[in-house]
């Protein structure tokens, strides 16, 4: 098409001039005013200031007490349990989830149905109920044995001795996380185009290598955000183990305030720790996402940094919309 060349457009075509063209060309652009935005912002800021004021000045928060107990020994032990429980459940649950996702996507109908059934059942039962179930499993199976199916038993152990609160908590949460990670991984794998594994097959790559080197890395951008969400959810969900007397962060706090009745300040201690841990996890997630986004952007330079995103989110009501949208579109393109 000749219209691609600006010179061609001018040749043989005269432009019609009008008197005020010059003034229009030199005029300054003024963006439209949005008084509603300012009113909304002021209202929200006032409410926010009131909230901060009351949290700081209300003596019943007893910030001094919060400070005293913040790094208290028994609370630190609870924190440690929350952390390793989260780490153990997430690692085991996620590995199990990858296996379940592979089963669900396999060509074997028995494995496929098994995986589907597992996810269906586990997602249908509230985690608290599962936890109580595993804690009371001894009433269903008083002893567990290792041996040949329907045959000889080698080792037998009393279930009540095996399934302490901690093991029940670990098993219950892992079973739950496995079901949810299976769905996340399956979604991620399905998001990778079929052509990618076909090209890899044509190159003579083996199945394992195709999954490890081609499919999984490209599924990660879809898997990481959802998994970060799941992990943060799990970190907080570990607090339900307090119902079966496992001494996590929340239960340690409860043990203390049941003796000294400083309920609110001690709950604030737990809350602050959960906030700190969640923040750290979010930052970690940001860097993992950035790593897996390589090859996704057109420009090879660094993308929007952590601070730019934080600032963008804070400032967006005040006219940053356009810049942000353009950046996001560039990221999508």
């Amino acid at each position, binding site marked *: 098409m000749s219209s691609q060349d600006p010179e061609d457009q001018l040749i043989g075509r005269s432009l019609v001039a009008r008197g005020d063209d010059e003034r229009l060309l030199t005029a300054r652009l003024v963006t439209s005013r949005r008084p509603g935005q300012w009113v909304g912002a002021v209202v929200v800021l006032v409410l926010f200031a009131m909230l901060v004021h009351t949290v700081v000045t209300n003596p019943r928060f007893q910030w001094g007490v919060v400070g005293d107990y913040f790094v208290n020994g028994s609370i630190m032990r609870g924190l440690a349990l929350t952390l390793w429980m989260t780490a153990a459940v997430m690692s085991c649950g996620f590995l199990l989830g990858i296996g379940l996702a592979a089963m669900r996507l396999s060509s074997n109908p028995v494995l496929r149905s098994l995986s589907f059934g597992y996810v269906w059942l586990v997602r249908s039962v509230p985690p608290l109920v599962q936890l109580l179930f595993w804690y009371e499993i001894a009433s269903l199976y008083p002893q567990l044995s290792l041996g040949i199916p329907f045959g000889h038993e080698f080792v037998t152990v009393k279930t009540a001795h095996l399934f302490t609160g901690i093991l029940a908590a670990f098993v219950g949460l892992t079973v739950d996380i496995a079901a949810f990670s299976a769905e996340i991984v399956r979604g991620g794998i399905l998001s990778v*185009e079929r*052509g*990618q594994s*076909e*090209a*890899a*097959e*044509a*190159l*003579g*790559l*083996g*199945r394992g*290598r195709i999954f490890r*080197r*081609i499919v999984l*890395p*490209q599924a990660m951008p879809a898997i990481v955000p959802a998994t970060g969400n799941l992990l943060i959810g799990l970190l907080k969900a570990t607090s339900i183990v307090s119902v079966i007397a496992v001494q996590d962060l929340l239960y340690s706090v409860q043990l203390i305030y049941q003796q000294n009745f400083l309920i609110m300040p001690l709950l604030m201690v737990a809350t602050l720790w959960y906030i700190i841990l969640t923040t750290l996890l979010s930052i970690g997630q940001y860097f993992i996402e950035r790593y*897996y986004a*390589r*090859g*996704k*952007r*057109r*420009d*090879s330079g660094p993308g929007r940094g952590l601070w730019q995103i934080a600032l963008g989110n804070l400032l967006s009501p005040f006219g940053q919309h356009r810049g942000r949208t353009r950046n996001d579109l560039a990221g999508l393109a």
Partner: protein
Amino acid sequence: MSVSLSAAGGPAETAAEESLPLVRIRGLRKNFGSHRVLDGIDLDVREGEVTVLLGPSGSGKSTLLRCVNHLEKPDSGFVEVAGELIGYRYDGSRNHGGRLHELPHRQVTRQRARIGMVFQQFNLFGHMTALENIIEGQVAAGVPRKQAVATAGELLERVGLAGREGSYPRQMSGGQQQRVAIARALALQPRLMLFDEPTSALDPELVGDVLAVIRDLAASGMTMIVVTHEIGFAREVADSVVFLDDGRIVESGPPASVLTSPSHQRARAFLAAVL
């Protein structure tokens, strides 16, 4: 059949193999559900020849191509490349006629490594740079990384993209991506190259660069099967043109005769529409 897919064009090949075409396709049939896509294809491609597959969409060209490296499993018939059955092993020891046993995945993988394939949608690995794309197959086949990188550099130069090792697919135009895809397919020194509509997803102005690379490849003596709608390219480069319609070969021969005076009615109508 003990002849293996050895490195391209070795002088040590037996006289028996030289007389055989590099690719022999016999009685190939393939159904998708109740739809018959390939209906008894017989085709020979000689070493060093370029065969262009033409035909309306849905005529089975791509499926035929994908059967050659076993991306599709034929329902009956067979494909032989360099005297080796693709995807199957013949067992004639039984009394009640012979059997074709499906090969283990590992062996199919080994066969595929000697057949290069280029796709319509390029299918470059999006999370890898051009260099990583090109060396992946070699590294998987056990070539030392240093040697693979050197080969990749030469190949990039050959397709006119010297120095673009570090670019990700999304930072390149469609034409550049397709040329990297060709380099990737060449990295394992295939004996046969398959092109599945290599220019159909490209902007018109980018088609020329890709065709030039394929033309050079043909001139260097590479055996190729090309599915394309570029009639001019077929006329210029093809040693033989095969016209498919409804899963059958309705016309085949040198481009001069098939493209200028096709005898089959369907081929005449198709050529009138695309020219």
